[in-house]
């Protein structure tokens, strides 16, 4: 680990305690959403569209309702009809009417797998059998499956009322282009005139899925007084509460969301799919609890994948090695409803470099595929695949080392992005230097068909609303309630920040994830925000506890509160001395319990930068690519829980390598998804990867009490580009399409040979 600025001494942060939920998770006791079982519980099933684009002419549910064991059947007619209203969903926003139509299709189905009706029955088999009896009369329409096809004037229109948001102005014609964005800086033409070398390339990337192992699930109970309780797998309980309230037109106070343990999300479990259905079915079945779980097929066909894309990049540099101009056009699949991550992709594409003259355009385009959802640094992997391979080609043409070229042009504090925003203290240069001096980069790679690639990556990170509360127990321990769902060890990372604030060992603080009735509003575990923002709430809680406890000690000692000092777990005032535990034991006679709560909405999150190095070996006959060695370097600001920071880096790298080499949605011409299972949508397994080396760089974020930067997302930004650059060094072809699957690689090698 390297530390760039003057290190701060911490006692708990940076250590590696066992995670507090660990024993439950290695013994099978942890309760995930689908593990719940309530008295009288019914099981649901969802009927889904076999067509990618069709008008619903009629739905006949009579046979399903008559099926033995069925207690309720619902269609879009059971949902309130909503006005268009845009809701912030965290890492993306969505029109609520579209979201309602995505829960159950109303007039049209817009993708293969679009939910049409749902059934609740006494067991899952009866629910599935009944759902299959629902008769839907469709008028099948031609599907639109490619963004460039969707942009043509004669393309079939998905959403009759959609008008382009054209740089802030509403268009007048029906269209599939939901939005057109533009960022500009400097004088682009002048910039390209100053260039001695210009590279221009076009790229396409396939739609891919987050691939969490736990399918979506939701269980709901509506009691006779209309009170709703939802148990589900979500990245954010408050988001589920808000979306469900909006879709069903209920006050949020009527809804309590209890987040169960969650089996992965990566952005895909922010928006709701099943929760409103479970509520409708519970209400309609006479107030019985109803559990809905998705099959893997449903997960792949109908929950948020991330966008496939078309990207064009042109960059120029002078002989001195300076980038003079850069231009990009990004066209992203939104899926069936507007809201692709093209905006954040525009922010990623040239972020690591000082570029005086630039123009970045983005288009958000609807197609007949599932509505996309956030996926770890949404839009970033596609964008960096394009820009970082062009940067690599520029370096090659200039005869420069790819890391040295990036260092020469790399951004630092004060440099401006294309959108004009200036960076505060960031760690890109430190990351690039750490990559240069890493054991991996310093070890030569030899052998035929082998190559080494590098790529850099940026992610902006996020802050958002977070709440926490804590109470001091009589035995000197502290119980922490926090609002962030724990997907990868965050309970412990938050308990560590409270322990650090209080000067206590980690064993003295126990963290619990609270439900929406038990803690203040907290945004979901997304945007690499939890350790940063909820950590900040926890820090504020700790400060308040210290103040209150100093007052109690002052009362005991009959001195003014200002005369009490607290450090490293000990209260002192003159000769008087009490440990934290000694004071905690006396609280009952010093005024009663000590409890503190805090809510924050910090804006000073710091961007994260990463550089990845990969060695590959290609079998030129089969096109199979083996990853020989991989190193991820990243600025964590302050690595609170280093094992789990490194694990984020490794996990993001692995997902990115899978995206680079294997993963893609395969549709037929009618828009039917052909590989909605894990045999045919192949994610990486143990044999596909080597050990994944990590180098954590710490350039503290000046905007956080402990210097924390988010770490979860940026690791997925560089891998696809790094692998593409390695493939070029190995076999001499520049791949412009993801995934770089064996067939495509063989075709590219054959095309080169003519």
């Amino acid at each position: 680990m390297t530390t760039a600025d003057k290190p701060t001494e911490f006692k708990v942060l940076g250590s590696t305690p066992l995670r507090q939920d660990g024993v439950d998770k290695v013994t099978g006791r942890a309760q995930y959403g689908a593990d719940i079982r309530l008295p009288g519980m019914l099981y649901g099933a969802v009927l889904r569209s076999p067509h990618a684009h069709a008008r619903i002419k009629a739905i006949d549910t009579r046979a399903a309702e008559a099926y033995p064991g069925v207690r309720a059947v619902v269609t879009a007619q059971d949902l309130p009809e909503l006005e268009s209203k845009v809701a912030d969903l965290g890492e993306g926003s969505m029109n609520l009417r579209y979201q309602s139509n995505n829960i159950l299709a109303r007039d049209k189905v817009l993708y293969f797998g679009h939910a049409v009706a749902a059934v609740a029955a006494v067991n899952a088999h009866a629910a599935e059998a009944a759902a299959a009896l629902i008769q839907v009369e469709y008028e099948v329409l031609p599907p639109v499956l490619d963004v460039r096809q969707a942009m043509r004037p004669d393309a079939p229109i998905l959403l009759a009322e959609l008008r382009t948001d054209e740089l802030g102005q509403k268009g007048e014609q029906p269209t599939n282009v939901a939005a057109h964005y533009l960022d500009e800086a400097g004088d682009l033409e002048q910039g390209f005139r100053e260039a001695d070398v210009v590279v221009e390339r076009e790229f396409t990337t396939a739609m891919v899925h987050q691939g969490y192992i736990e399918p979506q699930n939701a269980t709901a109970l509506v009691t006779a007084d209309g009170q709703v309780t939802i148990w589900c797998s979500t990245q954010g309980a408050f988001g589920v509460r808000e979306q469900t309230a909006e879709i069903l037109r209920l006050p949020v106070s009527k809804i309590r969301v209890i987040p169960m343990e969650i089996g992965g999300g990566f952005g895909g479990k922010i928006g709701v799919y099943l929760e409103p259905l479970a509520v409708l079915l519970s209400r309609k079945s006479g107030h019985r609890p109803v559990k809905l779980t998705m099959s893997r097929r449903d997960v792949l066909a109908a929950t948020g994948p991330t966008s496939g894309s078309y990207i064009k990049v042109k960059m120029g540099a002078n002989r001195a090695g300076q980038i003079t101009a850069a231009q990009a056009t990004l066209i992203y699949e939104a899926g069936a409803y507007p809201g692709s991550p093209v905006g954040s992709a525009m922010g990623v594409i040239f972020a690591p470099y000082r570029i005086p003259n630039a123009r970045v355009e983005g288009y958000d385009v609807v197609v007949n595929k599932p509505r996309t959802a956030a996926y770890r640094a949404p839009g970033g992997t596609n964008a960096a695949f394009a820009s970082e391979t062009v940067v690599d080609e520029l370096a090659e043409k200039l005869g420069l080392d790819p890391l040295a070229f990036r260092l020469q042009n790399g951004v630092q504090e004060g440099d401006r992005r294309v959108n004009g925003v200036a960076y505060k203290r960031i760690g890109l240069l430190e990351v690039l230097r750490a990559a240069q001096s890493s054991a991996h980069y310093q070890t030569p790679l030899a052998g035929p068909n082998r190559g080494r690639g590098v790529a850099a990556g940026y992610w902006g990170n996020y802050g958002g609303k977070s709440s926490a509360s804590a109470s001091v127990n009589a035995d000197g321990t502290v119980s922490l309630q926090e609002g962030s769902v724990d997907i990868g060890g965050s309970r412990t990372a938050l308990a560590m920040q409270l322990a650090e604030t209080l000067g206590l060992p980690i064993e003295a603080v126990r963290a619990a994830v609270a439900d929406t009735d038990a803690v203040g509003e907290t945004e979901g575990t997304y945007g690499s925000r939890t350790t940063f923002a909820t950590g900040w709430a926890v820090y504020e809680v700790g400060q308040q506890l210290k103040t209150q406890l100093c007052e109690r000690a002052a009362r005991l000692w009959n001195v003014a509160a200002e005369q009490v000092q607290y450090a490293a777990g000990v209260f002192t005032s003159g000769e008087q001395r009490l440990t934290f535990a000694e004071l905690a034991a006396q609280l009952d006679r010093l005024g009663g319990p000590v409890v503190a709560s805090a809510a924050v909405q910090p804006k000073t999150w710091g961007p994260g930068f990463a550089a990845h190095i990969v060695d590959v070996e290609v079998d030129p006959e089969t096109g199979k690519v083996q990853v020989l060695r991989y190193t991820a370097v990243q600025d964590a600001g302050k690595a609170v829980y280093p094992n789990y920071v490194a694990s984020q880096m490794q996990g993001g790298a692995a997902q990115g390598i899978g995206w680079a080499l294997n993963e893609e949605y395969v549709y037929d011409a009618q828009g039917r998804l052909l590989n909605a299972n894990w045999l045919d949508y192949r994610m990486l397994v143990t044999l596909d990867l080597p050990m994944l080396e990590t180098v954590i760089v710490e350039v503290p974020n000046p905007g956080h009490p402990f210097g924390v930067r988010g770490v979860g997302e940026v690791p997925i930004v560089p891998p696809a580009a790094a692998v593409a650059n390695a493939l070029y060094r190995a076999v001499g072809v520049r791949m412009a399409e993801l995934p770089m699957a064996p067939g495509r690689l063989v075709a590219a090698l054959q095309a080169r040979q003519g």
Partner: protein
Amino acid sequence: MSAMTHVQTTLNGEAVEFLCEPRQSLLEVLRETLGLTGAKEGCNNGNCGACNVLIDGALVNACLVLAVEVQGRTLTTIEGIAPPGGLHPLQRQFLEHAALQCGFCTPGFIVAAKALLDRTPRPSELEVRQWLAGNLCRCTGYDRIVRAVLAAAEEAQT
């Protein structure tokens, strides 16, 4: 609804009997009838390993076994891995190595790794990777899982 079949089996060392429909998978009966939810449903078609259990010591995907097939057999699930009052070396090493993030695939990996160590007490890294290639983890990139299994093998030898 079809007629129920009566099944007697040994589950985590105890005699257990249950009624099931012939179409019900072992996974469904474990989770829904017997209340053992440690085995997870990730795909329900044998591709992810999250429902791994042992039948007479052999590693299987519980989603691909019919419950009626375990008549007279001996079953071990994640709930039966740990010795009384403690943890199995694999469970301990998964925690020590931070070999889990969300934890959903973890029961399957631990059961699968136990089956490996029961027959190959000192596996190489490649043997671990080959054996665990039927288990999907989306969070970790497998590095820490492989290290945890190697460390558990070492711990069991000392």
